[in-house]
């Protein structure tokens, strides 16, 4: 088992005819993901290395039974593409695009609340990888193997770093989920922790947060009340000065709010062990599961 994407995933890529979109769509297909369609308005009828391109999500879904979307279009058009995918009946939408205006994300979020069966991952995220099954996004799959650790993170490369530290200790992953670095993410830590809690393959979860907002604090409360499996935490940005956006649009300490210290303390107060370095995260995981990663 795994969460969100697997062998059965039927992927439709929005922006498949773009340079980045086609590169990663093909990369995902080589990994084994069923890439069944692409959408680029005005390019319906063409194909990208055999993947049929449609003008609209509705026609793509009707023709190919796509159930998952990957959004790769530029920021000015990305929110509209997400809404189009949801409108066409796509159930899982993974939005890679970085730089979507926050007010666009607010409207998307408000609309998706009205259609609770649709799940949005991202935007501004590396996607979802279920090792050995499917890769939807830009996570470099070569570093990860199947296993029992579920990872959820606000960051991309930091996730690879942590995943690599885990791999060196023999741990594989059920799924790796990047929820993205924007102020208004489609899915929260809580949403993904809930999926891992239900996933029989996942025995331990790693949650990698960063400064800004209070998603980690809310997750800490949720873990205490609803999560039975062990969770290991990591928070980036202890040295970040207040008022400065640290790369991710959502990574900003506002006044005294959103500090790494407060987040780590909130998690630890609920019994979640927090690694102070990515290496320590792997050490704690090994301590909990046994050093051989079995």
């Amino acid at each position, binding site marked *: 088992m795994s969460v969100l994407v697997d062998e059965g995933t039927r992927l439709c890529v929005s922006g498949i005819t773009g340079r980045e979109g086609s590169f990663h769509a093909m990369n995902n297909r080589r990994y084994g993901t069923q890439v069944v369609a692409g959408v680029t308005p005005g390019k319906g009828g063409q194909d990208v290395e055999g993947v049929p391109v449609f003008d609209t999500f509705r026609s793509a879904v009707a023709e190919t039974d796509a159930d998952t979307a990957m959004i790769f279009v530029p920021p000015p058009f990305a929110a509209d593409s997400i809404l189009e995918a949801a409108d066409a009946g796509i159930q899982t939408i993974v939005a890679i695009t970085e730089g979507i205006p926050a007010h666009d994300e607010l409207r998307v979020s408000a609309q998706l609340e009205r259609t609770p069966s649709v799940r949005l991952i991202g935007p501004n995220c*590396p996607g979802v990888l279920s090792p050995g099954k499917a890769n939807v996004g830009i996570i470099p799959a070569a570093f990860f193997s199947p296993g029992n650790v579920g990872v959820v993170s606000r960051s*991309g490369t930091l996730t690879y770093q942590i995943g690599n530290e885990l791999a060196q200790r023999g741990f594989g992953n059920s799924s790796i989920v990047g929820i993205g670095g924007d102020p208004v993410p489609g899915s929260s830590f809580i949403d993904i922790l809930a999926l891992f809690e239900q996933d029989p393959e996942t025995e331990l979860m790693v949650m990698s947060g960063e400064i800004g907002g209070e*998603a980690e604090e809310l997750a800490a409360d949720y873990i205490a009340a609803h999560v039975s499996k062990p969770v290991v935490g990591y928070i980036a940005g202890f*040295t970040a000065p207040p008022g400065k956006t*640290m*790369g991710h649009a959502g990574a900003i300490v506002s006044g005294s709010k959103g500090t790494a210290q407060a987040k780590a303390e909130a998690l630890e107060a609920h019994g979640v062990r927090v690694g102070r*370095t990515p290496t320590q995260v792997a050490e704690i995981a090994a301590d909990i599961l046994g050093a051989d990663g079995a």
Partner: protein
Amino acid sequence: MDLLEYQGKQLLRRHGVPVPEGRPAASVDEAVAAAEEIGYPCVVKAQVQIGGRGKLGGIKVAADREAAREHADAILGMDIRGLTVHELWIEQASEIAAEHYASIVLDRSARAPLVMLSTRGGMDIEEVAATEPEAIATLHVDPLLGFCDFHARRLAFGAGVEADVVRPVGALLARLYEAFVAEEAMLVEVNPLIVTAGREVRALDAKVTLDANALFRHPDNAALRDTAAEDEQERMARERGLTYVKLDGDIGILGNGAGLVMSTLDVVAQAGGRPANFLDAGGGSKAEAIASAVEVILSDPKVRAVLFNIFGGITRGDEVARGLIEAFHQVQPQVPFVVRLDGTNDEEGRRLLAEAELPNLRTARTMNEAAEQVVELAGEAVAPGSR
């Protein structure tokens, strides 16, 4: 992107929010001319993006031309918590009967705009929220519905605004919401929102933060960027399309991906070092981008050693190595570099670096090892100068 007070007021005014009459001024003569036009008494206000400027002498009331000149002269060039005052806002003085507080912020947890109103204006609202939370009326707005008249009434009555100004305060909130949405703000805050002796409501201060990701739709707002307050390295980085934040230490940092760079800063600090900057070279960095980033880092004279921490996903280790080699040829760095390359094409990258035999560059196997090495090198670099 944070706006100066007067930029915020001009923006709010465009959406019908009542603000006192005022003029910007960048010199003493301009300030006096503005004061003469506005009339006396007027207020001379330092335009810096920092709170508490009044207590530090950055806001003065002028009763006549001489006083206006004197205050403008004193405040221009003044240092307020490390920020130099380059601009003034000359404003008609207001007779204040009551000070309220109003704000709209994008509430990340609720994924909706949060509107707040309180009659405890003029104070730090976080303090009010901590000591007297019931004094703040709050309401989340459904972004697909918008701000309704009944929302305004609920807030005004909830906050205990005096009956005769419930309507104008409500109208101001509606205009404020219009500005928040139309200009794509992350925050609009009016503190104080005053009731004048004549029972009119006005925004006496304005704090506006715009969404940097939305500026492509608002070219006029994009031009408001305060380049005078911008640090030299931050300006260089922005012009080169790099994400850079200046910090106050002496170890230059470059990594790929915001999370990994934040983590790198933390690991360096844990090893006893002080990072000089945050620099995210981004995904898929090509050699030119890396060379360009090295120039930005080294232009900070405080930098005594540099750490490269790359975990390649889309970014390829060989590209990073090529960029570094190019940068060494272009700028011939005088400070030591520690490079940690992992991920995509890492072996190829390390091979290229080894073959290039760059002076002053060593590679490390892990992130922790790299951090320890760079901290040690920065410490050694300090010693000769301090002898």
